[in-house]
């Protein structure tokens, strides 16, 4: 059977990494192929591959060229990328509580105005979708989710905020995201979650994996405060639900 997908491009990222690029744009199929290759590579356990970093459209493969040479690695990557998408048998789905609006979601009202919606309508559309963790990157636990309701798309802020609190849930472009640590952010802040995608001395240290599914549920400020205390004590806050 002919391969329904074109082969990815192999782009050198220095002497010890290669970028396997499936698309130049944010593309659902490309992201599934990235995650499928990531799984296939893990299963193949090729000697010399030290680390992989899935992103929206490419898989960055770190390797030790003293163990596996560039050409052999490239041939393996192309072979493992061929064929249909791997069946997603073990998708994990999480329900994540979010305190929307008010002091925790300072952009909710402006977002609603810009989209000619009420704040409640924005929240209703944000909690209605099921998202997939397309990638985790930039800072620890910063989870980029695909699957945003197209009616909630808006361009990022002209002036990124230099400081935002931990646990923000935000939208930017066609994405929504969860930023675990305090830091700069150019997206629109809809709310905050007490769930920590990254927490030292907790098992697991990183809660979400690329490929996981996420849905949101709205909680009030009192519940958020209680969940913050529980998270401090090591509770996951996010609830694993049937996919």
């Amino acid at each position: 059977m002919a391969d329904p997908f074109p082969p990815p491009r192999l782009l050198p990222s220095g002497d010890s990494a290669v970028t396997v690029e499936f698309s130049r744009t944010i593309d659902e199929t490309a992201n599934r192929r990235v995650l499928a290759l990531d799984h296939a590579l893990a299963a193949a356990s090729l000697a010399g591959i030290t680390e992989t970093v899935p992103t929206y459209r490419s898989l960055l493969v770190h390797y030790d060229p003293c163990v596996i040479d560039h050409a052999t690695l490239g041939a393996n990557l192309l072979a493992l990328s061929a064929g249909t998408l791997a069946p997603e048998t073990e998708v994990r789905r999480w329900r994540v509580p979010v305190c929307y609006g008010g002091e925790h979601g300072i952009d909710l009202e402006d977002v609603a105005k810009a989209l000619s919606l009420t704040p409640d309508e924005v929240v209703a559309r944000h909690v209605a979708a099921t998202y997939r963790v397309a990638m985790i990157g930039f800072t620890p636990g910063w989870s980029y989710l695909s699957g945003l309701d197209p009616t909630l798309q808006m361009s990022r802020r002209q002036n990124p905020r230099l400081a935002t609190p931990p646990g923000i849930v935000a939208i930017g472009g066609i994405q929504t995201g969860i930023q675990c640590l305090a830091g700069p952010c150019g997206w629109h802040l809809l709310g905050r979650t007490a769930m920590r995608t990254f927490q030292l001395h907790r098992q697991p240290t990183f809660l979400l994996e690329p490929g996981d599914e996420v849905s949101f549920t709205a909680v009030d400020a009192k519940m958020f405060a209680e969940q913050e205390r529980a998270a401090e004590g090591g509770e996951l806050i996010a609830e694993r639900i049937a996919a």
Partner: protein
Amino acid sequence: MSTLVVAQIGPASSVQDGGRFGAQRYGLTPSGAMDKLSLAAANSLVGNALLAAAIEIGPFGATFTAKGGSVRVALSGAPRPADVAKRQVEMNTSVTLSEGEKLTLGFARGGSFSYLAIAGGISGEPMFNSLSVNARAGLGSPYPRPLQSGDVFEVAPAGDAPELRLELPKAGGPIRVVMGPQDDEFSDEMKAQFLGSDWTISATSDRMGYRLEGPPIRHLHGHNIVSDGTVDGSIQVPGNGAPIVLMADRGTSGGYPKIATVITADFGRLAQTPAGTPFRFKAVSMAEAQAELRRYKDLLRSLPGRVTELTSSAFNIDALFTANVAGHAVSATDVTTWPGLALDSSDHP
């Protein structure tokens, strides 16, 4: 138990080792020493594992005091004036501080980062197998932040072994790169300009990235690409056309086109290039870059075997400084004569 007390220290100084690997897929950057050859040199002089944690000292001065007993240390990397109780301390030598003695380090000359290794190593709680400080993520041990005056390291008391010295091969020349991964976002003319121009590192650079000053590099299709993964030495070109080389504390993903990637063997040499000093890039093939990586690893492995006893303090200081300035390219050295050591990607402490 002896202690080494940080009596005074400037910004941009922190505990760093070989780095923190395995969690880049979760957004956790490796961190680690900016110049691993100098880290390994300092460690070799005090008998530590090559990439064990040491104190990475930024461009400014620092003073350390031994308390509760004697402490043996070694200094490598960016040359700087150093003395213990008026005795001059050369770069790439070990020195023992007696109880109460103070090691005084001046400003870096001709480099950015020096490494102070402590005999017996730094004790702390590894996170993802590393003590390296990643201040943004709150990681690092014993202090999850840059060092401050008053910080204390508990260390093994120094023995009475002779002091040691190490000579590193001289290196220089352009910073070598492998083109890509997104060099097709730039015209041939712009690639030629990137490779044919003098660049300087901006004073606003830090462990996350080195901002370069030179002629602007224009994109063919605009500066926004969909974020993808980064490596140490990725050279991003943002909208203003001024390239940024991503360094040890880089974000694990980035959304600007990457025109080229600094080869591993030259990364430390770039890290040590002082702000304002012009340099050039040179494109090399993948085969050459990987051959240089093997030579670089061989050089690191060879360091413990190159250590000799420091029998006299009558060194020509200028010659030592010249020999050990920033550059560490390795092609000049015959690797076949060096003893082998296990050093691979799993070799981080």
